[in-house]
């Protein structure tokens, strides 16, 4: 069964259908009286109007356009001779366009100028014109028809067919007006232009205006040029609203509307505009206009695209301008809150110091891990070698000096021989520092005793884990000399030490969980019965605690920070540095708890109000 593609919606219909079953568009062009109606563009005399048709299922790239025979309403013969306005148009193109412009003077271009005439004859110029017209629907229908209009000259006549068929929309327009109120048929009968009868009453005039499409209405009698001249000289140019004026294209291409001479007094004899003199031909050449040779620069841009293009343009231009850095807000709310926190904490720390407050009450119960450490050290005999790994950074001197000083003070009382070592580069100096501090805690002269030195500083173990492993397995090889370069192992106390298990006790002081764990992993397998005690910062106490609670115990005692040191002092009845710090430490903790509750509450309120106003939390904070 033969099918026909509807030029409007592209749907297939049966060949015999008059109108498209989908969009009711006419499939068969109305046949109008050839004498009165100008021929279709590009149609040479004797050629029949052609309707696109496609054998079902056989897309044929070459003869997609098939003459399906003449279809004429009411038996009228197909239109043959070319219309006057077309020939006028052609002459105009040939006279004007081909006059050599400045570039034509250039010799190489000369042959190109002469070819334009042949191209035009072959319809190439029309291709360019057609290419700019919105013939999407027509092109889409043609499955086998190439995407863009063909350049090859031999396909030019198909272009004419395309145009013939593309005028269907005008006829369809005309048929719509005939059907709407039957007026047009009266007009066509009386063979007067529907507007020519000016004696229609005001309201019918208004009705007419409403029915006439707006763009036709704008084209008043007489040619456009006349209208322009009136706009310039005669009637004052109507004040366009600003938004309308803004939307006018900035650089409209100079469409030169050259109208063939003698055209203005011709009266339209049929169709909806019958009776109007000097009408612009509704055929496509209106849209054609005579364009400048250059391709049109004005794209079909929708409103939103244009706005987006403008925004993009502004963004690009703003890149070029150097924007001064926003000057920093001197005092922001965060800075105020930060200073308030600082002042409160400083006050909480200094108040007990200035009021010479001393510790009223020790924390009641001594933790078991502190008690265990104290008992182990109490069992250390005089001149027993005790290895002390000083693994904390100088920044933690405040906390760990207090804790370690209490333990070293106890060891000094026991008369143990201290062997200091560190796997931290600043450790050797820190070890020397802590021995001096511990010596000042109690009324004993550990360092300046007459006998030979009571301690030795083996210095730095390099190489991290690997270095620790080496030291644990063979300390003599790992650190052959002490920090000042003297041989370390000739001291009588050190003579019998071959590996880490030969020490009476090992104490590791560290603020960091990784360093603490490294000592456990690398040395505890070799320690056998030598006890291992940790002096740690409060920040790593939760992480070392499991090694004390484990079975078997990998750590035999823990002294944790200022609190642990106070407890340790309580076990041996000696007040160390920690007792000086305790009142300030206590009030510092209390101030912190209050500040977190108050500050946190205020920020929580801010977050709730922010989420109520639809803003994501995480914005402005106190």
């Amino acid at each position, binding site marked *: 069964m033969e099918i026909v593609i509807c030029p409007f919606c592209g749907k297939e219909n049966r060949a015999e259908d008059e109108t498209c079953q989908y969009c009711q568009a006419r499939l068969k062009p109305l046949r109008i009286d050839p004498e009165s109606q100008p021929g279709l563009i590009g149609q040479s005399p004797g050629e029949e109007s052609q309707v696109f048709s496609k054998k079902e299922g056989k897309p044929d790239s070459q003869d997609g356009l098939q003459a399906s025979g003449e279809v004429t309403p009411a038996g009228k013969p197909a239109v043959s001779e070319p219309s006057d306005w077309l020939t006028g148009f052609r002459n105009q193109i040939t006279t004007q366009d081909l006059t050599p412009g400045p570039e034509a003077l250039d010799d190489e271009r000369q042959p190109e100028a002469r070819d334009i005439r042949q191209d035009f004859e072959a319809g190439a110029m029309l291709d360019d014109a057609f290419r700019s017209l919105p013939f999407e629907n027509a092109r889409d229908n043609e499955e086998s028809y190439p995407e863009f209009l063909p350049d090859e000259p031999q396909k030019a006549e198909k272009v004419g067919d395309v145009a013939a068929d593309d005028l269907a929309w005008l006829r369809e327009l005309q048929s719509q007006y005939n059907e709407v109120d039957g007026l047009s048929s009266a007009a066509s009968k009386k063979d007067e232009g529907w507007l020519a009868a000016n004696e229609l009453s005001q309201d019918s005039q208004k009705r007419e205006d409403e029915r006439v499409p707006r763009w036709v209405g704008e084209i008043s009698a007489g040619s456009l040029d006349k209208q322009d001249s009136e706009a310039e000289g005669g009637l004052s140019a109507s004040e366009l609203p600003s938004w309308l004026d803004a939307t006018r294209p900035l650089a409209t291409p100079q469409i030169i509307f050259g109208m063939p001479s003698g055209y203005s007094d011709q009266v339209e004899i049929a169709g909806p505009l019958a009776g109007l003199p000097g009408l612009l031909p509704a055929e496509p050449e209106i849209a054609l206009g005579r364009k400048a040779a250059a391709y049109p620069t004005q794209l079909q841009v929708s409103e939103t695209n244009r706005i987006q293009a403008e925004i993009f343009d502004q963004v690009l231009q703003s890149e070029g301008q150097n924007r001064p850095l926003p000057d920093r807000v001197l005092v922001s709310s965060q800075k105020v809150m930060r200073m308030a926190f600082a002042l409160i904490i400083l006050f909480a720390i200094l108040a007990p110091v200035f009021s010479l407050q001393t510790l009223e009450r020790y924390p009641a119960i001594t933790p078991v891990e502190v008690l265990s450490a104290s008992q182990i050290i109490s069992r250390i005999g005089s001149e027993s070698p005790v290895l002390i790994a000083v693994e904390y950074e100088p*920044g933690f001197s*405040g906390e760990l000096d207090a804790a370690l000083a209490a333990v070293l003070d106890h060891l000094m009382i026991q008369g143990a021989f201290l062997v200091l070592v560190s796997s931290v580069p600043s450790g050797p100096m820190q070890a020397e520092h802590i021995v001096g501090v511990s010596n000042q805690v109690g009324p004993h002269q550990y360092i300046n005793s007459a006998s030979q030195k009571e301690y030795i500083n083996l210095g730095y173990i390099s190489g991290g884990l690997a270095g620790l492993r080496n030291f644990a397995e063979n300390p003599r090889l790992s650190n052959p000399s002490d920090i000042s370069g003297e041989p370390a192992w000739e001291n009588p106390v050190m003579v019998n030490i071959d590996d880490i298990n030969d020490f009476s006790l090992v104490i590791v002081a560290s603020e960091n969980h990784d360093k603490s764990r490294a000592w456990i992993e690398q040395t505890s397998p070799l320690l056998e019965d030598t006890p291992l005690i940790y002096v740690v910062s409060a920040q790593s106490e939760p992480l070392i605690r499991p090694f004390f609670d484990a079975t078997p115990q990998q750590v035999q005692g823990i002294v944790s920070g200022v609190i642990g040191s106070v407890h340790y002092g309580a076990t041996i009845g000696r007040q160390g540095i920690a007792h000086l710090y305790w009142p300030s430490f206590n009030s510092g*903790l209390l101030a912190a708890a209050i500040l977190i509750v108050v500050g946190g509450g205020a920020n929580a309120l801010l977050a709730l109000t922010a989420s109520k106003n639809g803003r994501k939390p995480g914005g402005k*904070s106190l």
Partner: protein
Amino acid sequence: MKSYPFVYLLAAIAIASGAAVLVGYFFPSLAGLKGEMLDWAVIFTAVLLLIGVISLVRTHWRKIMQDQKDRAYSLVLIFSFTLTLLVAAPSGPTSKWSMWLYENLLIPIESSLLGILAVFLLYASARLFNQRMNIYTLLFIGTVLLALLGWLTIPGVDLEGFKDARDWLSSVWAVAGVRGILLGVGLGTVATGLRILIGADRPYGG
């Protein structure tokens, strides 16, 4: 990474040395080779520390020579480095004047830096509600408050209950979380190390 033959040499060295050390962890009989290689690594780490010092000082020296911004600070850095060398090198880092410099300048600066951290930590925990308002923030702040109250002693107020709660939280709940994190970090570390040992990652300029 653009491969060129030299990269394959570097990859071969890294993989071979890594494999030798790894084998030493699990086959005690081959621990000797591992020990020797770890010894060399210990020496190279120390040498790298020294090269790091030279590189740091040279960077700031170049800033001074090239008249770059903040060259005054670089001058101060090089001056304090030189002063420390002159004081500590002759008779050892634990000599009298070296310890004087250490105890009167280095410890005060580093302790003060840690001290101002206390205020920032409080400010950050107070602001946490505004950044992430959820149940976990409440749980975090609640744990911090409980830990602080567990250490406090307020005359006339018995806070032993807080202390016991803090100890239980610390020795059970915190330990569970820590174990989970350590196991997770352990898996990540093994994956990272294995990628290097099979040559997938080549951070050494390959």
